[in-house]
Every structure is written in structure tokens, then in C-alpha cells.
């Protein structure tokens, strides 16, 4: 065998080649992974922290759409509780009323979507939110224009759920005895005020306002009845 023949044989080894898929994958691994590591490697803990933070923020944000009975609902409650804790004493009654309204909106959504499974939890949450609003704060809200708007909204929503969808908001179980829907509480307050005003000496104009309030009360429109009482009280304060 000549040298040329041997060299020819050696050159046949050129047929040995790596697998083409491995060549590509290997290149990607070497250059690709290095690219991730090479960008500010000292910031990796910061990236991880930032990622966790964004994830948590996203999770809390996402939980705001949850309904009672959902797994993320407790996160929504945490957010609301922190909102109450970090608010001033003056803001607390308004926030509590807004939460009652929120619970009613949840109930409405559940009823509309016919999510029977979540109904009991939603009612429980709603009742708990109403219990948070004590009588003193309710009266205060009823006499403050901006808060009264929220109360009116709550009453409207309660009425809608009861009359349109037949949801029994006030049916209480043993452990929840003593629960009264907000509409009922407003009704009692209107009733008390009418009785109180009946005892007072009123001029003709005031008596006409009281009569109007009584009519609305008897029709079950406690919002309007209360507004007449408010007008009357305001007038009396001004004249006195």
C-alpha cells in the first residue's frame, strides 16, 4: 500500500460527523444559557425577588375578581382587611359600607351565574360585612351625603336581590341570630324618626314633609322617606 493510498484512507474518516440536532442544541446551550447568566449575574437575587413580588401582586390583583367559595377569595379578604386597618377612624365606616356593597355585588353575580354552590358562602360573607357596620355608624352614614349615597345603593341592591331573585337575605341561622339586613335597619331608623317627629310641634310645612315621609315609609320606599325626614330635620335646625 502506497502512502497516497493510506492518505486516501485517512481522508475517508472525514465522513465522521456529529449529529446535526446535537450540533444545534449544543450551540444553543452554550451560547443561550450563558447569555442568561451573563447579564448582571449579581442581580439574580434581585430578579428572583422582583419576580416573587410581581407574582404576589398579580395573584392579589387576580384574587380581586374571585367570589366567595373560590380558592383565592381569602386573598381578597386579606386585601380588604388591610384596607380597613390602614385607614383613618373617619374613613372606616365608609369603607365598611363599601364592603357591604361589594358583598352584594358578589351575591348578585353568583345568582346571575347560577353558582348555587357558592351561594351559602356569599350570604355568610354578606351577613358578616353587615354585622361590621354598627348602628351608630349607620346613623352617621345616613346623615352624611356621600355615605348616604352608598347606603342608598346597598338598599337598592338588597331590594333587587330579594324581589327579583328571591334571595332571602334576612333568614338567619341559629349562630347568626340577630342579623338584620341594612334595609331593615334603615327602615327601623326611619320608623323611630317618624315616631319622634310626631311628638314634636311642627308647622304646616313640616307636617306636610312628615306626611310625605310617612307615605313613602308605608310604600316601603325607605330611601325617599329618610330623605324627607332629613329635609325636615335640616329645616328645623336652620329655623332653631
Amino acid at each position, binding site marked *: *500500500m502506497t*502512502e497516497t493510498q*493510506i*492518505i486516501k*484512507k*485517512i*481522508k*475517508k*474518516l*472525514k*465522513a*465522521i*460527523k*456529529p*449529529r446535526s440536532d*446535537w*450540533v444545534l442544541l*449544543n*450551540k444553543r*446551550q*452554550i*451560547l443561550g444559557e*450563558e*447569555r442568561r447568566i*451573563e447579564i448582571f449575574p449579581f442581580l439574580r437575587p434581585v430578579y428572583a425577588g422582583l419576580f416573587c413580588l410581581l407574582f404576589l401582586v398579580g395573584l392579589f390583583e387576580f384574587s380581586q375578581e374571585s367570589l366567595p367559595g373560590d380558592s383565592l377569595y381569602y386573598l381578597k379578604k386579606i386585601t380588604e382587611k388591610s384596607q380597613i386597618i390602614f385607614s383613618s377612624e373617619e374613613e372606616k365606616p365608609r369603607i365598611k359600607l363599601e364592603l357591604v356593597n361589594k358583598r352584594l355585588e358578589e351575591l348578585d353575580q353568583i345568582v346571575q351565574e347560577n353558582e348555587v354552590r357558592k351561594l351559602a358562602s356569599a350570604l355568610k360573607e354578606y351577613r358578616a360585612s353587615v354585622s361590621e357596620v354598627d348602628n351608630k355608624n349607620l346613623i352617621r352614614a345616613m346623615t352624611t351625603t356621600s355615605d348616604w349615597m352608598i347606603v342608598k345603593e346597598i338598599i337598592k341592591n338588597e331590594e333587587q336581590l330579594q324581589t327579583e331573585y328571591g334571595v332571602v337575605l334576612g333568614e338567619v341561622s341559629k349562630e347568626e341570630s340577630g342579623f338584620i339586613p341594612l334595609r331593615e335597619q334603615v327602615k327601623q331608623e326611619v320608623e323611630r324618626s317618624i315616631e319622634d317627629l310626631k311628638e314634636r310641634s311642627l308647622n304646616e310645612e313640616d307636617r306636610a314633609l312628615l306626611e310625605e315621609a310617612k307615605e313613602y315609609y308605608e310604600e316601603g320606599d325607605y330611601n325617599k322617606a329618610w330623605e324627607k325626614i332629613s329635609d325636615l330635620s335640616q329645616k328645623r335646625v336652620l329655623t332653631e
Partner: protein
Amino acid sequence: MANPREKFSKIYDKYIDKIYRFVFLKVSSQEIAEDLTSEVFLKTWRFFKEKGQEIENIQAFLYRTARNLVTDHYRQKGRIRIVSINNPLIIDPRQDLERDSELNSDIEVIKMVMSDLKDDYQNVLIMHYLDDLSIDEISELLGKTNGATRVLVHRALKSLKKALKDKVEEV
């Protein structure tokens, strides 16, 4: 001007076949050859990123790294060099089947015989005849004079010739 990643990407494409073949002929295992070749390029890339300007001859650097890694591979746990004829070879798919079979047989024989040669002989044969490196380049890579390299190539070829002759007589 291309960034280091783009530059190295071109280097990878240019040398991956050669370095893989160089390693494969020494370890005779596709899996080990892939692992070691991958390590050669990873090490080179790390060095290239930091001191790319200092590498005067990237080809020499790659071969040197490959040689060192193969040596380390055999040094670890006292591995013995075994030549397996069962390892699949990746052959240019354009060849037809008859030629494939003939080529495979030739390749197996030459691979087996070459693996019995001295390491230095294997290196120069692969570099000069397979990878088409000039005597100058091999001299630089091995740290030898041109004359000494020429002698080494001549002796390696002579040794291979004898080994092939012995193999034929054996069969």
C-alpha cells in the same frame, strides 16, 4: 463590528465538525465525544468572552483544549482506551448504500488501526490529513519546530502503514 457571541457562533460552526471528529477518533464513543466536545466549546467560550483578544489562534486553542480534555478523560479512574466497532458513525447522507457499506468498513478499519498508534502520531495524522492543517499550524499547536513536525508526520504515516499491513495479514 460583530459582538463576541456572533463571533463565537461563527467559530463554533467552523470547527464543531473537526473538533468532534478529533475527539471521537480518540474516545470511540458518540456519547463521550459529544460530552467532551461540548466541554471544549464551553471552556473556550468562557475564555473567549473574557479574554477574546488574547487568543491569537483559536484553532490551536480548540485543539489544545480538546487534547487536554481527552487526556483528563483517560486519566480519570484510569480508563482504558477501548475501540468499539459497534459505535454508529454519522456519515454524509448523500452517499449511496453500497458506497456506505464499503466506506463504513474502511472507516472502521482505519479508525481501529489509528487508535492503536501513539497519541502524537494520531494527532498529527488527524490534523494534517483530516483537518487539513498545515505543517506550520501543527508546529505551532504542538510547540515543535517545522522540521520536527515533518518528521513526526512522516513517522506517523509509516507507523500507520505498518499497522494496516499487520491488520491485513491478521485477517
